């Protein structure tokens, strides 16, 4: 198993620059998993950070920049999907396909699972990413998604059922 260690900051850094230095990369990686597109992910994070910069004092006082920024990213990614991402003119390649020759063993397994993850409904995908990549508990995920923890559990259960169903079907065929 791959162990994932993610440290949540104890308290929000005093300066915006310090926050970006500490958490910027993690936000971009989170956005990559929401959008499946590195270029757009960086764009969404820049946009979210710009919004945060303009009200940094308030966000820092509330001591929740991570929740605030992740919520912005989830909503921004949803808006982007709704506009019909596959119909937009490209500005850079979409890295959703495996490189030729990278289809052996674990890589093929990850590629198959990633293709199923990107087909999940947006909120289910967000829950999966927040739970299994960001390693957050249901209460924190609920805060980010602005819903009840029971809704988070429902999304997670449905997503896992859906993924299992597809994997079983693929295995059977």
């Amino acid at each position, binding site marked *: *198993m*791959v162990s*994932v260690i993610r440290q949540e900051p104890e308290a929000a850094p005093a300066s*915006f*620059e310090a926050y*970006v*230095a500490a958490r*910027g*990369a993690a936000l*971009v*990686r*989170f956005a*990559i*998993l929401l959008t499946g597109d*590195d270029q757009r992910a*960086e764009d969404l*994070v*820049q*946009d979210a*950070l*710009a*919004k*945060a*910069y*303009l009200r940094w004092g308030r966000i820092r006082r509330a001591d929740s920049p991570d929740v605030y920024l992740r919520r912005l990213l989830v909503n921004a990614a*949803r*808006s982007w*999907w*709704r506009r019909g991402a*596959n*119909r*937009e*003119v*490209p*500005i*850079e*390649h*979409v*890295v*959703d*396909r495996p490189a030729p020759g990278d289809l052996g063993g*674990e890589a093929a*397994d*990850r590629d198959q*699972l*990633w293709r199923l*993850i990107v087909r999940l*409904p*947006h*909120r289910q995908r967000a829950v*999966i*990413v927040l739970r*299994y*990549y960001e390693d957050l508990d249901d209460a924190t995920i609920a805060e980010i998604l602005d819903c009840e923890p029971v809704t988070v559990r429902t999304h997670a259960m*449905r997503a*896992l059922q859906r*993924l*299992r169903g597809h*994997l079983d079907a693929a295995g059977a065929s």
Partner: protein
Amino acid sequence: MTDLETRLTATLTARADRPVSTDALGAAAVRRAHIVRRRRRAIGAAGLAAVLVALFAVVRLPAPGVGDNGLPVAAGGGEVGTDPSVVHFALDYGVLDKTVATEWVSSSKGYEKATVYDGENRWWVTFYLATDEAILDRAAGDDHGAEEPSTVNGEPALLREGFYDNARAFEIRWEPRPGVHAMLLASVNTADFALQVAESIRLDRALRCVMPLRLTELPPGYRWVECQTRVRRTPTAGQPRWIHSGLTVEQPGGTPVLIWTIERRAADPSVQAAFHPNRTVAGWPAEWRTTSPRGLWFTTFGPMELFVCALNPEDADALTEAEATRLATHLEVSRNLDAPSTWPTRAAG
């Protein structure tokens, strides 16, 4: 953790793993924030000026009504979902008064739809007409709660709430006339407002789905199947601002090919940096992309940007360079992007 959960963690970690320059990220965000702040100040100043004008003069913007859907009225006739140049309904912007932009889709594949958006993507409403209810089932998905009986203009209807297109929304289904099924998906606050919107849709009108583009000649065996066009409302009735359009044609084997146009972004350095022209088509520099997304790309095609590709990524290889070039060579662009009444009445053929 189950095996699947372990695999999920490994997959997500592998996919997200890449170096990120936080210095560049922070600097870009701060630059963007300063631009937003300047824009807000400019808008604030413009707003103040508008208030002052309004205080001293009666400024009356035309209230958009049923007749102002931004698209030309069609002569009518024809059946729902049979003609990719006509939608057989109109919206009432008196009810949808916060609408900023509308996307219209007409098709020959048994469906038509329109989606309206507010300015900040806080809500959206999509209305569908289809001749086969299965089309609506596929569009609605299955992530919803129990249904309740209701009515739309006296017709029996079903109302339910759930997640649609990744957002919480209300769904209303009814059959406005035999064999024609209607569905409204509305990410609005109350079921009452969703029902009000459903009742406001005019099914006694038809509009032309037009775009500032025309495919003058379809390759042999091809057929035009869908028109998609998005326009932004403006204070001037009947003069919406064009945003983007998509013209979908089907190859003889049934693979859909999309001709996608959007307002030109040539001044955007990130677009220019990504664009690597490797030929000239119809007099414009073009890039035939062999990596995803595969297709023929023009950052400048007259006043617009153009991308010709297979509609579905899994069909990417079905469109050859020669076919994409042929399609692009037979495109005519309208001079005035913001005057739908001057656009071709049929976008293909």
